[in-house]
């Protein structure tokens, strides 16, 4: 197993109390697997990303273990985690393409970045050029300023930088959100290519767009209100989702070809619970059409069907 996450908890400390953004998450990721992390805003997927790499000072690590390639990741300690970041675990943060220093040429920015990590920029340059070419970027891009690049180009530059040291785990946080549909396809396919060429071993793709995941992910993990509700292979999630939330989510997506007059899609009424004081038991029960009294108790982690498929629901058909 490339990545094993066991009962991970990460909260945000606020004036009003602890916001339990990630509240006991467990899953595994195999070598070469691209796992999609899907969920709506506030479900904790970005928090999970930051917890795995320890990049947000407002977030408090509360408990749980993360083991990467058999070695535990010290996600509770800044200094120790600093060693592992970029080499073993790397992240393409949300809005990364807007976060490049506007007053530095790309090449210089990369060199400074590598120096700050104690890596010899010169030695890596041929590899850097090779990878830039691979993603369809002219090596001349290194002497441009970020403002001279389009959104898709910037995103690809950021992806190349993040994977320069061949990390075991890459976390891609909403890398396609702000892009046009044609660029989305290019960027998503680049991600798959990185995995195919071995630049990264495993990838966690965080997005709210399930249809992108349907294209590139091997498996999908659905989160809701800080908890895992379902994890299965992409085909299983898309074709026959078991958890009521996954089912409602899938059925609320309009495919090209579905028309309002013919087939009225339905959303999910209500809102996610606030994570300051989450409800007991299953957090989805207020909006769930299948909720029973039993759902006030914490739902189990039901292994359903094939290896690696999990559903957290009392009512899920086995």
């Amino acid at each position: 197993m490339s990545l094993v996450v066991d009962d991970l908890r990460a909260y945000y400390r606020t004036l009003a109390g602890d916001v339990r953004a990630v509240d006991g998450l467990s899953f595994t990721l195999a070598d070469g697997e691209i796992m999609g992390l899907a969920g709506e805003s506030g479900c904790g997927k970005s928090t999970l990303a930051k917890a795995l790499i320890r990049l947000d000072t407002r977030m408090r690590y509360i408990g749980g273990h993360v083991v990467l390639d058999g070695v535990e990741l010290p996600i509770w300690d800044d200094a120790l985690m600093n060693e592992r970041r970029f080499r073993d675990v790397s992240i393409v943060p949300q809005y990364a393409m807007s976060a490049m220093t506007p007053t530095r040429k790309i090449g210089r920015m990369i060199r400074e970045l590598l120096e700050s990590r104690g890596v010899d920029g010169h030695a890596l340059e041929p590899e850097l050029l090779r990878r830039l070419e691979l993603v369809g970027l002219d090596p001349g891009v290194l002497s441009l300023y970020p403002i001279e690049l389009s959104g898709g180009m910037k995103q690809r530059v950021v992806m190349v930088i993040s994977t320069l040291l061949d990390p075991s785990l890459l976390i891609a946080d909403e890398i396609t959100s702000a892009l046009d549909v044609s660029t989305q396809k290019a960027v998503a396919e680049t991600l798959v290519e990185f995995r195919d060429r071995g630049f990264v071993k495993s990838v966690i793709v965080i997005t709210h767009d399930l249809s992108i995941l349907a294209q590139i992910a091997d498996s999908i993990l659905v989160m809701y209100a800080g908890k895992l509700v379902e994890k299965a292979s992409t085909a299983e999630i898309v074709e026959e989702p078991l958890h009521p939330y996954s089912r409602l989510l899938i059925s609320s997506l309009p495919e090209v070809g579905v028309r309002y007059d013919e087939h009225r899609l339905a959303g999910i009424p209500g809102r996610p619970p606030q994570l300051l004081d989450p409800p007991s038991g299953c957090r989805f029960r207020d909006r769930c059409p299948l909720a029973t009294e039993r759902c006030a108790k914490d739902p189990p982690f039901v292994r359903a069907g094939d290896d690696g498929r999990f559903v957290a629901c009392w009512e899920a058909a086995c």
Partner: protein
Amino acid sequence: MTTAPVAGPADSAPSSVPETASQLTTTQETLYFALRNRKLVIGSAIVIALLAFAIVGPFIARHGPLDYTGHLSWAPTTKSGHWFGTTLLGQDVFAQFATGLRLAFLVGVVGGGIAATIAMLIGFTAGYRGGALDEFLNMITNIVLVIPTFALLLVIAAYLQVRSVMVEAILIGITSWPWAARAVRAQTFSLVSRDFVDMARLSGRSQMQIIFTEIAPNMSSYLFMMFILLFGGAVLIAATLDFIGLGPSGTISLGMMMQLSVQNAALQLHLWWWFLPPGIAIATLVGSLYVMNVGLDEVFNPKLREM
């Protein structure tokens, strides 16, 4: 389905930090932080104390500020109510100090107020309208900015035979606004691009209405801080003008006290009670205002607060 109307994570575009489920209104939250900010509390306490002194002082002084009491160069004593001593010429320092402090606040309010008004007028218009009007107002701002204001004030003040505090305050007000106008313009620019301004237009609101009912209230903390800075700046400029002998005629101010004391060799004569109080007062007043401002910035800007 019971979804109680409680604030929760907003389902807007994916955001990195969940909203705090705070039930407090913005005002309550601001007050909460305001009362806990040491800089703000200490700074405003000092300013309020000085203001109280300025209001009450002239009433409890036993002598008029310009009266010649015949008690020359007395050190601070309780005799005859000369708590701050007397000057070389026999005037009561306490009375002068209290009057001077009053004038300082007056100049601050009037001078700062005028500057703030001009800055807002120009800043809002330039920021909201943009285009050629903005260019024109920018040009004016830059010209006033570049004029050696101090030299200008010197010339004007020296030219006028009789100078009142009001005139001094007005002069300061009409020359110290450029930086503030620039700041207001920049803030207005960023607010104008927000959709709620377009929404106001779609609701039939006129430009003036939008500036005063949508944009200015959004900047209220900023404008408040700006006024405090202009206030402090006016006090300082007035003190400097007074110190070089261009103070208002017929009365006494803190700067003038310092000028007279230096002129009459108070330093050499060790009449410390004559120049120290006004100097310390000016420094404390302006310094406290600036400290207040830093504190206010922390209160209004959630990112600067220590949690």
